């Protein structure tokens, strides 16, 4: 049951988007987010959407997968649109007692909804086309200048790698513990929310104990393999930036410029 959870939601493939240098992908995603927030009007926003659609088509990610990524944010979308529709001042279009709907309200709410959806789709595209481990690698390298101000960049990346590595292991373990507790008569499916939360204790405690034991063993195994922190470390996988990476970044910056220009024209 727990095995169905996919984390990192990587969708393996060999498309042009997949093969971009992950560092560039992260920066381009940043530029894209910049486009969305810089956009003042629908025309500027449309430019951002064109950019999203282009990357999306090139990535060959199935459309239903993209819609799936939106599922968790449906409540947020509804909440924002309701707030914007009802609580924005302006000339009312319809009025029932204290509730009024204004043209500005409708407009802003549509704008916000499109912006949020595009934001989520854009960042999902990054995680769909980049494996978690490559992503971690890229983050480590992008942040490496921050080592100078004593930010433990390597350690953070190592923590992420280990967390990713142990997610399936711990999920499997949780499944086993749940079955074991059920076999001993634990009741996890009935009662009110408080009782159910209490029923989790006999699952969480063994899970924590075992996680600590695993951590201890892993630490010894890492020491056996001469782990001594990030200094003097080399990497098996080298990240190489090529012409196409610079080209893609260039295109995204051009789009950002267009967005800013449109803002000046219509703003």
């Amino acid at each position, binding site marked *: 049951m727990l095995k169905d959870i996919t984390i990192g939601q990587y969708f393996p493939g060999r498309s042009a988007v997949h093969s971009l240098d992950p560092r560039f992908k992260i920066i381009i995603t940043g530029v894209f987010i910049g486009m969305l927030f810089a956009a003042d009007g629908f025309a500027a926003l449309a430019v951002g959407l064109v950019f999203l659609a282009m990357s999306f088509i090139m990535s060959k990610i199935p459309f239903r997968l993209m819609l799936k990524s939106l599922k968790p944010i449906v409540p947020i979308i509804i909440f924002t649109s309701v707030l914007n529709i009802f609580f924005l001042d302006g000339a009312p279009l319809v009025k029932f007692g204290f509730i009024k709907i204004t043209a500005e309200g409708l407009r802003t709410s549509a704008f916000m909804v499109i912006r949020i959806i595009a934001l989520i789709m854009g960042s999902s595209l990054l995680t769909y086309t980049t494996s978690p481990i490559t992503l971690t690698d890229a983050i480590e390298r992008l942040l490496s200048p921050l080592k100078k101000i004593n930010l433990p960049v390597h350690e953070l990346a190592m923590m992420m790698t280990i967390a990713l590595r142990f997610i399936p292991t711990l999920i499997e373990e949780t499944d086993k513990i749940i079955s074991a507790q059920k076999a001993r008569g634990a009741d996890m499916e009935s009662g009110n929310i408080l009782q159910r939360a209490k029923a989790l204790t006999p699952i969480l405690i063994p899970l924590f104990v075992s996680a600590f034991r695993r951590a201890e063993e892993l630490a010894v195994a890492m020491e056996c*393999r001469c782990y001594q922190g990030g200094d003097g470390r080399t*990497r098996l996988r080298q990240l190489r930036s090529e012409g196409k990476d610079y080209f893609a970044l260039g295109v995204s910056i051009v789009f950002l410029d267009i967005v800013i220009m449109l803002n000046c024209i219509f703003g």
Partner: protein
Amino acid sequence: MDEKIISAQNVDFHYEADPEDKTPPKQVLKNVSLDIGRGQFTAILGHNGSGKSTIAKHMNGILLPCGGKVYVDGIDTCDEKKIFDVRQRVGMVFQNPDNQIVATIVEEDVAFALENLGVPPDEMRERVDDALRSVGMYEYREHSPHQLSGGQKQRVAIAGIIAMRPDCIVLDEPTAMLDPKGRQEVLKTIRELNHDFGITAVLITHYMEEAAQADRIIVMDNGEIIMDDIPKNVFSNVEKMKSIGLDVPQVTELMYLLGRDGIPSDTHIISEEECADALEKLLKG
């Protein structure tokens, strides 16, 4: 080059005592001395709590002796400056394969030790591929470890050690959590590494059939070495083995029981083929 890759001299060890507890800490190792020769395949047998894992952890400086010395290729394991030289020479594989794999991709995990040692990427590629081939996991290099079986994971863990090109590999009950098929795979890998690549192997186990394949068996009980001999001689002491809670291979036990019933038989037999021959001879009279 030293002929002895590992040399432990009068090693005493106990864990830190709890300051609240007034009783003296329990001695885990008592005056243990042993030498491991280059290229040897040694098995260490012992009951739970006999100190067999503790002595293994002394072999690459994970634990340091409270008394006595441990030398690896002539280097004192207490020398902090040389601890990585020691660990590079003596690699260690543990019981649970899940808890020693660091990366989310097989080949990256095998590369972990090399990344730590600062090996240049080109050479690293070559060493990772060689290590994966030598344990027969090359086809799985791009898999994620959790897709593999227990035996395969343990072979990946072994490859991660082999990639360091150690002189010696210490395996602390590497087959304890595996199914019979995985156990066979792992043992075959260990034998091949020892035989074909000349890597010294120290196998800690409680499976007698595994120990029987070694060149030498060390039996530990209560923190002391009580037997140190070739497998045939160790297992022929059936009663002594049983008195410390250990078993002997089934064929040796059969020979022992026959002997007890007055049928002339040889308890030096440890393999099925030898046993079959001996029985045939007996039956033909």
